Protein backbone atom coordinates (compact mmCIF):
# COMPACT_ATOMS: atom_id res chain seq x y z
CA UNK A 1 0.00 0.00 0.00
CA UNK A 2 1.38 3.36 -1.00
CA UNK A 3 -0.22 6.48 0.39
CA UNK A 4 -0.83 9.70 -1.49
CA UNK A 5 1.58 11.45 0.86
CA UNK A 6 4.30 8.96 0.03
CA UNK A 7 3.67 9.50 -3.67
CA UNK A 8 3.94 13.26 -3.25
CA UNK A 9 7.12 12.89 -1.22
CA UNK A 10 8.77 10.70 -3.83
CA UNK A 11 7.61 13.01 -6.60
CA UNK A 12 9.30 15.92 -4.82
CA UNK A 13 12.56 13.97 -4.59
CA UNK A 14 12.31 13.12 -8.28
CA UNK A 15 11.35 16.68 -9.27
CA UNK A 16 8.08 15.61 -10.84
CA UNK A 17 4.92 17.61 -10.48
CA UNK A 18 1.85 15.41 -10.46
CA UNK A 19 -1.78 16.35 -10.92
CA UNK A 20 -4.12 15.02 -8.21
CA UNK A 21 -5.52 12.30 -10.48
CA UNK A 22 -1.94 11.25 -11.30
CA UNK A 23 -1.13 11.02 -7.60
CA UNK A 24 -4.20 8.87 -7.12
CA UNK A 25 -3.42 6.61 -10.06
CA UNK A 26 0.26 6.28 -9.18
CA UNK A 27 -0.55 5.42 -5.58
CA UNK A 28 -2.57 2.48 -6.87
CA UNK A 29 -0.10 1.36 -9.50
CA UNK A 30 2.96 1.79 -7.33
CA UNK A 31 1.21 -0.10 -4.59
CA UNK A 32 0.58 -3.05 -6.87
CA UNK A 33 4.09 -3.02 -8.23
CA UNK A 34 5.69 -2.73 -4.81
CA UNK A 35 3.46 -5.53 -3.51
CA UNK A 36 4.78 -7.68 -6.33
CA UNK A 37 8.35 -6.70 -5.56
CA UNK A 38 7.76 -7.82 -1.96
CA UNK A 39 8.27 -11.29 -3.42
CA UNK A 40 11.91 -10.51 -2.67
CA UNK A 41 11.19 -10.82 1.04
CA UNK A 42 11.49 -14.58 0.49
CA UNK A 43 15.14 -14.16 -0.45
CA UNK A 44 17.62 -14.71 2.37
CA UNK A 45 19.49 -11.46 2.85
CA UNK A 46 21.67 -11.72 5.92
CA UNK A 47 24.23 -13.93 4.29
CA UNK A 48 25.46 -14.12 0.77
CA UNK A 49 26.87 -11.74 -1.70
CA UNK A 50 25.33 -8.57 -2.99
CA UNK A 51 25.83 -8.40 -6.71
CA UNK A 52 26.68 -4.79 -7.47
CA UNK A 53 28.69 -5.33 -10.65
CA UNK A 54 28.53 -8.19 -13.11
CA UNK A 55 31.82 -7.19 -14.74
CA UNK A 56 35.09 -7.87 -12.99
CA UNK A 57 37.77 -5.17 -12.48
CA UNK A 58 40.68 -6.42 -14.53
CA UNK A 59 41.87 -3.61 -16.72
CA UNK A 60 44.18 -0.66 -16.10
CA UNK A 61 42.68 2.73 -15.28
CA UNK A 62 42.79 5.75 -17.56
CA UNK A 63 46.17 7.45 -17.95
CA UNK A 64 46.21 11.12 -16.89
CA UNK A 65 46.56 12.47 -20.45
CA UNK A 66 44.43 15.38 -21.73
CA UNK A 67 42.00 14.69 -24.56
CA UNK A 68 39.74 16.75 -26.80
CA UNK A 69 36.98 18.86 -25.30
CA UNK A 70 33.78 19.92 -27.02
CA UNK A 71 33.99 23.35 -28.69
CA UNK A 72 32.13 25.82 -26.48
CA UNK A 73 29.72 27.03 -29.19
CA UNK A 74 28.52 23.46 -29.69
CA UNK A 75 27.89 23.07 -25.99
CA UNK A 76 26.01 26.32 -25.65
CA UNK A 77 24.00 25.62 -28.80
CA UNK A 78 22.38 22.73 -26.93
CA UNK A 79 21.17 24.92 -24.09
CA UNK A 80 17.63 26.31 -24.09
CA UNK A 81 19.07 29.59 -22.85
CA UNK A 82 22.67 30.74 -22.95
CA UNK A 83 25.04 33.61 -23.66
CA UNK A 84 28.44 33.32 -25.36
CA UNK A 85 30.02 31.81 -22.32
CA UNK A 86 27.54 30.13 -20.00
CA UNK A 87 24.17 28.38 -19.95
CA UNK A 88 21.41 30.09 -18.04
CA UNK A 89 18.86 28.78 -15.60
CA UNK A 90 16.23 30.67 -13.62
CA UNK A 91 17.31 31.76 -10.16
CA UNK A 92 17.18 29.59 -7.08
CA UNK A 93 14.46 31.06 -4.91
CA UNK A 94 15.13 28.49 -2.25
CA UNK A 95 18.51 27.49 -0.80
CA UNK A 96 19.50 24.55 -2.96
CA UNK A 97 22.57 22.43 -3.50
CA UNK A 98 23.99 19.71 -1.30
Amino acid at each position, binding site marked *: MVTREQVRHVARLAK*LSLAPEEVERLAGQLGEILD*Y*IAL*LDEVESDTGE*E*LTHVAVPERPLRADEPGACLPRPE*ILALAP*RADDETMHVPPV*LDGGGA
Partner: protein
Amino acid sequence: MRPVGELAGALARGEIGSLELVEDSLARIRELDPKLHVFLHVDEAGAREAADRSDARRARGETLGPLDGIPYALKDNIVARGLPSTCASRILEGFVSPYDATLVTRLRDAGAVLVGKVNLDEFAMGSSNEHSAFGLTRNPHETSHVPGGSSGGSCAAVASGMVPLAFGSETGGSVRLPASFCGVVGLKPSYGRVSRYGLVAFGSSLDQIGPVARTVQGVADALSIVAGLDPRDATTATAPVPRYETGDDSLLGKRVGVIRELLGEGVDPEVGECVRRAANECEKLGARLVDVSLPHAKYGVAVYYVVSSAEASSNLARFDGARYGYRAPGVRDLEELYTESRSQGFGDEVKRRIMIGTFALSSGYYDAYYGRAMHARALIRDDFARAFEAADVLLSPVSPTPSFRIGDRMEDPLAMYLTDAMTIPANLAGVPALSLPAGATSSGLPIGVQLQAPYLREDVLLEVAGSLEGALGWGPLPALVAEGAA
Protein backbone atom coordinates in the same frame (compact mmCIF):
# COMPACT_ATOMS: atom_id res chain seq x y z
CA MET B 1 14.93 -8.60 -48.08
CA ARG B 2 18.11 -10.53 -48.55
CA PRO B 3 20.12 -11.12 -45.41
CA VAL B 4 23.36 -9.36 -44.60
CA GLY B 5 25.59 -12.26 -45.63
CA GLU B 6 24.02 -12.57 -49.06
CA LEU B 7 24.16 -8.83 -49.65
CA ALA B 8 27.81 -8.71 -48.66
CA GLY B 9 28.49 -11.40 -51.24
CA ALA B 10 26.52 -9.59 -53.94
CA LEU B 11 28.36 -6.36 -53.20
CA ALA B 12 31.69 -8.14 -53.33
CA ARG B 13 30.86 -9.73 -56.67
CA GLY B 14 29.81 -6.37 -58.03
CA GLU B 15 26.25 -7.55 -58.67
CA ILE B 16 24.89 -4.54 -56.84
CA GLY B 17 26.24 -1.34 -55.39
CA SER B 18 25.73 0.13 -51.95
CA LEU B 19 23.91 3.14 -53.38
CA GLU B 20 21.41 0.81 -54.99
CA LEU B 21 20.85 -0.92 -51.66
CA VAL B 22 20.29 2.43 -49.99
CA GLU B 23 17.82 3.53 -52.65
CA ASP B 24 15.95 0.24 -52.21
CA SER B 25 15.91 0.82 -48.51
CA LEU B 26 14.64 4.37 -48.81
CA ALA B 27 11.96 3.30 -51.25
CA ARG B 28 10.74 0.57 -48.95
CA ILE B 29 10.68 3.00 -46.06
CA ARG B 30 8.63 5.45 -48.09
CA GLU B 31 6.23 2.67 -48.99
CA LEU B 32 5.81 0.93 -45.66
CA ASP B 33 6.57 3.43 -42.96
CA PRO B 34 3.21 5.20 -43.16
CA LYS B 35 1.64 1.88 -42.13
CA LEU B 36 4.24 0.76 -39.63
CA HIS B 37 5.76 3.96 -38.23
CA VAL B 38 9.23 2.57 -37.70
CA PHE B 39 11.50 5.52 -38.47
CA LEU B 40 11.75 8.70 -36.39
CA HIS B 41 14.41 10.18 -38.62
CA VAL B 42 15.73 9.19 -42.03
CA ASP B 43 19.07 10.62 -43.09
CA GLU B 44 18.77 10.33 -46.87
CA ALA B 45 21.68 12.61 -47.72
CA GLY B 46 24.02 11.06 -45.18
CA ALA B 47 23.12 7.53 -46.25
CA ARG B 48 23.67 8.25 -49.94
CA GLU B 49 27.03 9.87 -49.20
CA ALA B 50 28.18 6.94 -47.12
CA ALA B 51 26.99 4.54 -49.81
CA ASP B 52 28.92 6.46 -52.46
CA ARG B 53 32.07 6.27 -50.38
CA SER B 54 31.61 2.54 -49.96
CA ASP B 55 31.12 2.04 -53.71
CA ALA B 56 34.21 4.16 -54.36
CA ARG B 57 36.28 2.01 -51.98
CA ARG B 58 35.09 -1.08 -53.81
CA ALA B 59 35.85 0.48 -57.18
CA ARG B 60 39.41 1.17 -55.99
CA GLY B 61 39.77 -2.53 -55.31
CA GLU B 62 40.17 -2.19 -51.56
CA THR B 63 39.54 -5.24 -49.42
CA LEU B 64 36.31 -4.59 -47.57
CA GLY B 65 34.76 -6.09 -44.45
CA PRO B 66 31.41 -7.86 -44.21
CA LEU B 67 29.41 -4.73 -43.35
CA ASP B 68 30.90 -2.34 -45.86
CA GLY B 69 28.10 -0.77 -47.86
CA ILE B 70 25.36 -2.44 -45.82
CA PRO B 71 22.49 -0.15 -44.75
CA TYR B 72 21.48 -0.26 -41.08
CA ALA B 73 19.13 1.44 -38.66
CA LEU B 74 19.86 2.64 -35.16
CA LYS B 75 17.49 2.67 -32.20
CA ASP B 76 16.91 6.31 -31.30
CA ASN B 77 18.54 5.95 -27.87
CA ILE B 78 21.95 5.50 -29.48
CA VAL B 79 23.56 8.81 -30.38
CA ALA B 80 25.05 9.74 -33.73
CA ARG B 81 26.73 13.08 -34.19
CA GLY B 82 24.68 15.57 -36.14
CA LEU B 83 21.52 13.47 -36.05
CA PRO B 84 18.60 13.85 -33.65
CA SER B 85 18.39 11.42 -30.73
CA THR B 86 15.05 11.62 -29.03
CA CYS B 87 14.83 8.32 -27.14
CA ALA B 88 11.19 8.62 -28.29
CA SER B 89 10.69 11.26 -25.64
CA ARG B 90 9.44 14.84 -25.73
CA ILE B 91 12.18 15.75 -23.32
CA LEU B 92 14.75 15.17 -26.06
CA GLU B 93 12.68 16.36 -29.00
CA GLY B 94 15.05 18.24 -31.28
CA PHE B 95 18.17 17.19 -29.37
CA VAL B 96 21.07 16.71 -31.80
CA SER B 97 24.03 14.90 -30.31
CA PRO B 98 27.46 16.55 -30.70
CA TYR B 99 29.20 13.20 -30.39
CA ASP B 100 29.05 9.65 -31.78
CA ALA B 101 28.42 6.47 -29.84
CA THR B 102 31.42 4.15 -30.03
CA LEU B 103 29.14 1.72 -31.87
CA VAL B 104 28.52 4.31 -34.56
CA THR B 105 32.22 5.09 -34.92
CA ARG B 106 33.05 1.43 -35.33
CA LEU B 107 30.28 0.88 -37.86
CA ARG B 108 31.39 3.91 -39.85
CA ASP B 109 34.97 2.67 -39.83
CA ALA B 110 33.66 -0.67 -41.11
CA GLY B 111 31.85 1.10 -43.94
CA ALA B 112 28.29 0.38 -42.80
CA VAL B 113 25.68 2.91 -43.96
CA LEU B 114 23.43 4.56 -41.36
CA VAL B 115 20.00 5.09 -42.87
CA GLY B 116 18.20 6.55 -39.87
CA LYS B 117 16.92 6.36 -36.31
CA VAL B 118 14.08 4.08 -35.36
CA ASN B 119 11.29 4.14 -32.82
CA LEU B 120 11.35 2.61 -29.36
CA ASP B 121 9.47 2.70 -26.09
CA GLU B 122 10.36 5.99 -24.46
CA PHE B 123 13.84 5.70 -22.91
CA ALA B 124 13.66 1.96 -23.66
CA MET B 125 11.09 1.47 -20.95
CA GLY B 126 8.51 -0.90 -22.27
CA SER B 127 7.83 -4.23 -23.92
CA SER B 128 5.55 -3.27 -26.76
CA ASN B 129 6.77 -0.04 -28.38
CA GLU B 130 3.46 1.54 -27.40
CA HIS B 131 5.12 3.97 -25.01
CA SER B 132 6.79 6.19 -27.61
CA ALA B 133 5.93 9.89 -27.38
CA PHE B 134 5.89 9.98 -31.18
CA GLY B 135 3.39 7.24 -31.90
CA LEU B 136 3.52 3.48 -31.73
CA THR B 137 5.19 1.12 -34.17
CA ARG B 138 3.19 -1.75 -35.63
CA ASN B 139 4.16 -5.36 -36.09
CA PRO B 140 4.82 -5.89 -39.83
CA HIS B 141 3.28 -9.38 -39.65
CA GLU B 142 0.03 -8.12 -38.17
CA THR B 143 -0.40 -4.39 -37.94
CA SER B 144 -3.06 -4.60 -35.25
CA HIS B 145 -0.44 -6.18 -33.00
CA VAL B 146 2.61 -4.87 -31.23
CA PRO B 147 6.11 -5.48 -32.56
CA GLY B 148 7.34 -5.92 -29.01
CA GLY B 149 9.67 -3.53 -27.25
CA SER B 150 11.50 -1.62 -26.41
CA SER B 151 13.48 -2.16 -29.65
CA GLY B 152 10.28 -2.49 -31.66
CA GLY B 153 11.48 -0.12 -34.35
CA SER B 154 14.77 -1.98 -34.85
CA CYS B 155 13.06 -5.35 -35.25
CA ALA B 156 10.21 -4.09 -37.40
CA ALA B 157 12.75 -2.36 -39.66
CA VAL B 158 14.50 -5.64 -40.35
CA ALA B 159 11.36 -7.77 -40.44
CA SER B 160 9.77 -5.48 -43.02
CA GLY B 161 12.89 -5.43 -45.17
CA MET B 162 13.51 -1.71 -44.75
CA VAL B 163 17.08 -2.51 -43.73
CA PRO B 164 18.95 -5.82 -43.47
CA LEU B 165 20.55 -4.86 -40.16
CA ALA B 166 19.57 -2.82 -37.12
CA PHE B 167 20.82 -2.18 -33.63
CA GLY B 168 18.60 -2.08 -30.60
CA SER B 169 19.31 -2.16 -26.90
CA GLU B 170 18.44 -4.46 -24.05
CA THR B 171 17.88 -3.90 -20.38
CA GLY B 172 15.38 -6.70 -19.69
CA GLY B 173 14.85 -8.38 -23.03
CA SER B 174 14.24 -5.41 -25.29
CA VAL B 175 15.99 -6.93 -28.30
CA ARG B 176 15.03 -10.57 -27.85
CA LEU B 177 11.35 -9.93 -27.22
CA PRO B 178 10.62 -7.81 -30.31
CA ALA B 179 12.87 -10.09 -32.36
CA SER B 180 10.66 -12.99 -31.32
CA PHE B 181 7.45 -11.07 -32.03
CA CYS B 182 8.76 -9.94 -35.45
CA GLY B 183 10.36 -13.17 -36.61
CA VAL B 184 13.96 -11.99 -36.80
CA VAL B 185 17.19 -12.85 -34.99
CA GLY B 186 18.04 -10.60 -32.05
CA LEU B 187 21.11 -10.88 -29.84
CA LYS B 188 21.86 -9.55 -26.39
CA PRO B 189 25.64 -9.76 -25.98
CA SER B 190 27.27 -10.44 -22.60
CA TYR B 191 27.28 -7.40 -20.35
CA GLY B 192 30.42 -5.46 -21.24
CA ARG B 193 30.91 -7.14 -24.63
CA VAL B 194 29.76 -4.06 -26.58
CA SER B 195 30.49 -0.49 -25.52
CA ARG B 196 27.65 1.49 -23.95
CA TYR B 197 29.33 4.83 -24.68
CA GLY B 198 26.65 6.70 -26.57
CA LEU B 199 23.78 4.46 -25.50
CA VAL B 200 21.46 6.64 -23.45
CA ALA B 201 21.52 4.94 -20.09
CA PHE B 202 18.46 3.27 -18.62
CA GLY B 203 19.61 0.45 -16.32
CA SER B 204 23.36 0.88 -16.41
CA SER B 205 24.24 -2.49 -14.86
CA LEU B 206 21.96 -4.24 -17.36
CA ASP B 207 22.10 -2.27 -20.62
CA GLN B 208 23.67 -3.70 -23.75
CA ILE B 209 23.40 -2.82 -27.42
CA GLY B 210 22.33 -5.76 -29.56
CA PRO B 211 22.26 -6.44 -33.31
CA VAL B 212 19.11 -7.53 -35.16
CA ALA B 213 19.11 -9.25 -38.57
CA ARG B 214 17.20 -11.90 -40.53
CA THR B 215 19.92 -14.47 -39.98
CA VAL B 216 22.38 -15.55 -37.32
CA GLN B 217 25.17 -14.80 -39.81
CA GLY B 218 24.12 -11.15 -39.98
CA VAL B 219 24.10 -10.83 -36.22
CA ALA B 220 27.46 -12.59 -35.95
CA ASP B 221 29.07 -10.32 -38.54
CA ALA B 222 27.74 -7.27 -36.76
CA LEU B 223 28.96 -8.42 -33.38
CA SER B 224 32.47 -9.08 -34.73
CA ILE B 225 32.64 -5.44 -35.81
CA VAL B 226 31.16 -3.67 -32.81
CA ALA B 227 32.28 -5.78 -29.85
CA GLY B 228 35.43 -5.21 -27.83
CA LEU B 229 37.15 -3.17 -25.17
CA ASP B 230 36.38 0.56 -25.30
CA PRO B 231 38.54 3.01 -23.29
CA ARG B 232 35.44 5.21 -23.00
CA ASP B 233 33.38 2.53 -21.22
CA ALA B 234 34.93 1.22 -18.01
CA THR B 235 32.58 -1.77 -17.94
CA THR B 236 33.69 -3.26 -21.25
CA ALA B 237 35.53 -6.57 -21.10
CA THR B 238 39.16 -6.99 -22.14
CA ALA B 239 38.54 -10.43 -23.68
CA PRO B 240 39.54 -10.43 -27.35
CA VAL B 241 36.80 -10.50 -29.99
CA PRO B 242 36.94 -13.50 -32.31
CA ARG B 243 35.43 -13.53 -35.78
CA TYR B 244 32.13 -15.08 -34.76
CA GLU B 245 31.15 -18.14 -36.82
CA THR B 246 27.71 -19.64 -37.18
CA GLY B 247 28.40 -23.31 -36.93
CA ASP B 248 28.41 -26.25 -39.30
CA ASP B 249 24.94 -27.70 -38.80
CA SER B 250 26.06 -30.27 -36.28
CA LEU B 251 25.38 -30.11 -32.57
CA LEU B 252 27.25 -33.31 -31.83
CA GLY B 253 28.78 -33.12 -28.40
CA LYS B 254 26.68 -30.16 -27.35
CA ARG B 255 24.48 -30.28 -24.28
CA VAL B 256 21.32 -28.24 -24.64
CA GLY B 257 19.73 -27.40 -21.31
CA VAL B 258 15.97 -27.03 -21.25
CA ILE B 259 14.97 -24.69 -18.42
CA ARG B 260 12.42 -26.47 -16.31
CA GLU B 261 10.83 -23.41 -14.69
CA LEU B 262 10.20 -21.66 -17.98
CA LEU B 263 8.02 -24.31 -19.59
CA GLY B 264 5.30 -24.61 -17.02
CA GLU B 265 1.87 -23.15 -16.81
CA GLY B 266 1.35 -19.66 -18.11
CA VAL B 267 3.16 -20.49 -21.34
CA ASP B 268 0.98 -20.27 -24.44
CA PRO B 269 0.58 -23.75 -26.00
CA GLU B 270 1.82 -22.59 -29.41
CA VAL B 271 4.91 -21.12 -27.78
CA GLY B 272 5.51 -24.34 -25.89
CA GLU B 273 5.14 -26.26 -29.13
CA CYS B 274 7.84 -24.15 -30.82
CA VAL B 275 10.26 -24.76 -28.00
CA ARG B 276 9.59 -28.49 -28.07
CA ARG B 277 10.11 -28.56 -31.83
CA ALA B 278 13.37 -26.65 -31.43
CA ALA B 279 14.52 -29.06 -28.74
CA ASN B 280 13.70 -31.92 -31.11
CA GLU B 281 15.74 -30.41 -33.91
CA CYS B 282 18.66 -29.98 -31.54
CA GLU B 283 18.56 -33.68 -30.77
CA LYS B 284 18.37 -34.55 -34.45
CA LEU B 285 21.50 -32.47 -34.97
CA GLY B 286 23.30 -34.56 -32.38
CA ALA B 287 22.83 -32.56 -29.20
CA ARG B 288 22.00 -34.13 -25.87
CA LEU B 289 19.05 -32.56 -24.06
CA VAL B 290 19.43 -32.03 -20.34
CA ASP B 291 17.05 -30.74 -17.77
CA VAL B 292 18.29 -27.63 -15.96
CA SER B 293 16.84 -25.47 -13.25
CA LEU B 294 17.08 -21.77 -12.52
CA PRO B 295 15.28 -21.82 -9.17
CA HIS B 296 15.66 -18.10 -8.48
CA ALA B 297 14.58 -16.94 -11.93
CA LYS B 298 11.10 -16.41 -10.49
CA TYR B 299 12.47 -13.38 -8.62
CA GLY B 300 13.86 -11.97 -11.82
CA VAL B 301 11.07 -9.55 -12.63
CA ALA B 302 11.03 -8.19 -9.08
CA VAL B 303 14.80 -7.76 -9.02
CA TYR B 304 14.75 -6.19 -12.45
CA TYR B 305 12.12 -3.65 -11.61
CA VAL B 306 13.96 -2.56 -8.49
CA VAL B 307 17.43 -2.40 -10.04
CA SER B 308 16.54 -1.00 -13.45
CA SER B 309 14.13 1.57 -12.02
CA ALA B 310 16.58 2.64 -9.34
CA GLU B 311 19.33 3.11 -11.89
CA ALA B 312 16.95 4.79 -14.30
CA SER B 313 15.69 7.25 -11.69
CA SER B 314 19.30 8.37 -11.32
CA ASN B 315 20.22 8.20 -15.03
CA LEU B 316 17.24 10.35 -16.00
CA ALA B 317 17.98 13.06 -13.44
CA ARG B 318 20.14 14.80 -16.03
CA PHE B 319 17.00 15.65 -18.03
CA ASP B 320 16.13 18.82 -16.21
CA GLY B 321 15.70 21.49 -18.85
CA ALA B 322 18.95 23.20 -17.90
CA ARG B 323 21.67 22.37 -20.40
CA TYR B 324 19.88 20.58 -23.26
CA GLY B 325 16.56 19.12 -24.23
CA TYR B 326 13.10 20.37 -23.46
CA ARG B 327 12.59 23.35 -21.15
CA ALA B 328 9.03 24.11 -20.14
CA PRO B 329 8.03 27.60 -21.23
CA GLY B 330 7.37 30.33 -18.69
CA VAL B 331 9.21 28.81 -15.71
CA ARG B 332 9.97 31.40 -13.08
CA ASP B 333 12.43 29.68 -10.80
CA LEU B 334 14.76 26.70 -10.65
CA GLU B 335 12.28 24.40 -8.94
CA GLU B 336 9.70 25.06 -11.63
CA LEU B 337 12.31 24.56 -14.34
CA TYR B 338 12.90 21.06 -13.05
CA THR B 339 9.41 19.92 -12.18
CA GLU B 340 7.64 21.42 -15.18
CA SER B 341 10.21 20.41 -17.78
CA ARG B 342 10.35 16.87 -16.46
CA SER B 343 6.64 16.44 -15.91
CA GLN B 344 5.78 17.79 -19.34
CA GLY B 345 8.68 16.07 -21.07
CA PHE B 346 8.40 12.52 -19.69
CA GLY B 347 5.62 10.08 -20.57
CA ASP B 348 3.62 8.12 -18.02
CA GLU B 349 5.66 4.91 -18.11
CA VAL B 350 8.90 6.79 -17.64
CA LYS B 351 7.44 8.69 -14.71
CA ARG B 352 6.23 5.44 -13.21
CA ARG B 353 9.70 3.91 -13.41
CA ILE B 354 11.33 7.01 -11.99
CA MET B 355 8.90 6.90 -9.10
CA ILE B 356 9.54 3.22 -8.40
CA GLY B 357 13.28 3.77 -8.56
CA THR B 358 13.27 6.86 -6.38
CA PHE B 359 11.10 5.08 -3.85
CA ALA B 360 13.35 2.01 -3.77
CA LEU B 361 16.41 4.13 -3.09
CA SER B 362 14.83 6.54 -0.68
CA SER B 363 15.72 6.78 2.95
CA GLY B 364 14.47 3.80 4.90
CA TYR B 365 13.69 1.64 1.90
CA TYR B 366 17.11 0.91 0.45
CA ASP B 367 17.74 -2.34 2.32
CA ALA B 368 14.27 -3.74 1.80
CA TYR B 369 14.32 -3.13 -1.93
CA TYR B 370 17.72 -2.44 -3.44
CA GLY B 371 19.64 -4.46 -0.87
CA ARG B 372 17.38 -7.49 -1.27
CA ALA B 373 17.44 -7.16 -5.03
CA MET B 374 21.24 -7.28 -5.07
CA HIS B 375 21.19 -10.46 -3.04
CA ALA B 376 18.64 -12.10 -5.30
CA ARG B 377 20.66 -11.00 -8.31
CA ALA B 378 23.71 -12.85 -7.00
CA LEU B 379 21.59 -15.97 -6.56
CA ILE B 380 20.32 -15.75 -10.14
CA ARG B 381 23.85 -15.35 -11.44
CA ASP B 382 24.87 -18.42 -9.45
CA ASP B 383 21.91 -20.38 -10.85
CA PHE B 384 23.23 -19.76 -14.36
CA ALA B 385 26.74 -20.76 -13.38
CA ARG B 386 25.41 -24.06 -12.04
CA ALA B 387 23.21 -24.61 -15.10
CA PHE B 388 26.20 -24.09 -17.38
CA GLU B 389 28.08 -26.85 -15.62
CA ALA B 390 25.46 -29.23 -16.95
CA ALA B 391 24.78 -27.58 -20.32
CA ASP B 392 26.56 -25.62 -23.03
CA VAL B 393 23.53 -23.57 -23.97
CA LEU B 394 20.07 -23.16 -22.46
CA LEU B 395 16.85 -23.37 -24.45
CA SER B 396 13.58 -21.73 -23.45
CA PRO B 397 10.76 -19.54 -24.74
CA VAL B 398 11.47 -15.85 -25.17
CA SER B 399 8.13 -14.81 -23.70
CA PRO B 400 5.11 -16.72 -22.38
CA THR B 401 2.99 -15.54 -25.30
CA PRO B 402 3.38 -14.39 -28.89
CA SER B 403 2.68 -10.77 -29.87
CA PHE B 404 -0.51 -9.26 -28.45
CA ARG B 405 -3.00 -6.73 -29.69
CA ILE B 406 -2.14 -3.06 -29.47
CA GLY B 407 -3.66 -1.66 -26.29
CA ASP B 408 -4.13 -5.02 -24.56
CA ARG B 409 -1.61 -4.51 -21.78
CA MET B 410 -1.54 -0.74 -21.50
CA GLU B 411 -3.90 -0.51 -18.55
CA ASP B 412 -2.04 -3.06 -16.48
CA PRO B 413 1.63 -2.12 -16.00
CA LEU B 414 2.33 -5.25 -14.00
CA ALA B 415 1.01 -7.52 -16.74
CA MET B 416 3.26 -5.68 -19.19
CA TYR B 417 6.25 -6.21 -16.89
CA LEU B 418 5.64 -9.97 -16.73
CA THR B 419 6.09 -10.15 -20.51
CA ASP B 420 9.81 -9.97 -19.75
CA ALA B 421 9.94 -12.74 -17.14
CA MET B 422 11.92 -15.13 -19.35
CA THR B 423 14.35 -12.66 -20.83
CA ILE B 424 15.19 -10.71 -17.68
CA PRO B 425 17.38 -13.35 -15.97
CA ALA B 426 20.05 -13.13 -18.70
CA ASN B 427 20.32 -9.36 -18.21
CA LEU B 428 20.64 -9.82 -14.46
CA ALA B 429 23.37 -12.43 -14.80
CA GLY B 430 25.10 -10.64 -17.69
CA VAL B 431 25.14 -13.74 -19.92
CA PRO B 432 24.64 -13.55 -23.69
CA ALA B 433 21.24 -14.57 -25.08
CA LEU B 434 19.56 -14.67 -28.45
CA SER B 435 16.11 -14.97 -29.94
CA LEU B 436 15.82 -17.26 -32.97
CA PRO B 437 12.71 -17.52 -35.18
CA ALA B 438 11.17 -20.93 -34.49
CA GLY B 439 7.74 -20.93 -36.02
CA ALA B 440 4.51 -19.03 -35.91
CA THR B 441 1.02 -19.13 -34.47
CA SER B 442 -1.82 -20.42 -36.56
CA SER B 443 -2.66 -16.79 -37.33
CA GLY B 444 0.84 -16.08 -38.59
CA LEU B 445 2.39 -14.36 -35.61
CA PRO B 446 6.08 -15.27 -35.35
CA ILE B 447 7.36 -17.12 -32.31
CA GLY B 448 11.01 -17.15 -31.34
CA VAL B 449 12.93 -19.43 -29.01
CA GLN B 450 15.62 -18.25 -26.66
CA LEU B 451 19.16 -19.56 -26.42
CA GLN B 452 21.49 -18.52 -23.60
CA ALA B 453 25.21 -19.20 -23.18
CA PRO B 454 27.84 -18.61 -20.49
CA TYR B 455 29.36 -15.18 -19.94
CA LEU B 456 31.47 -14.08 -22.95
CA ARG B 457 30.65 -17.28 -24.83
CA GLU B 458 28.90 -15.64 -27.79
CA ASP B 459 30.95 -18.04 -29.91
CA VAL B 460 29.06 -21.05 -28.56
CA LEU B 461 25.77 -19.20 -28.68
CA LEU B 462 26.11 -18.20 -32.32
CA GLU B 463 27.44 -21.58 -33.33
CA VAL B 464 24.45 -23.41 -31.83
CA ALA B 465 21.98 -20.79 -33.06
CA GLY B 466 23.39 -21.02 -36.58
CA SER B 467 23.07 -24.78 -36.65
CA LEU B 468 19.54 -24.72 -35.26
CA GLU B 469 18.60 -22.04 -37.76
CA GLY B 470 19.57 -24.40 -40.51
CA ALA B 471 17.00 -26.84 -39.22
CA LEU B 472 14.24 -24.37 -38.35
CA GLY B 473 14.59 -22.01 -41.29
CA TRP B 474 14.39 -18.25 -41.27
CA GLY B 475 11.51 -16.24 -39.86
CA PRO B 476 8.46 -15.77 -42.09
CA LEU B 477 8.13 -12.86 -44.48
CA PRO B 478 5.35 -10.52 -43.44
CA ALA B 479 2.40 -10.61 -45.79
CA LEU B 480 2.67 -6.85 -46.04
CA VAL B 481 6.06 -7.21 -47.56
CA ALA B 482 5.38 -10.28 -49.66
CA GLU B 483 2.52 -8.37 -51.31
CA GLY B 484 4.91 -5.62 -52.40
CA ALA B 485 8.36 -6.12 -53.84
CA ALA B 486 10.31 -9.14 -52.56
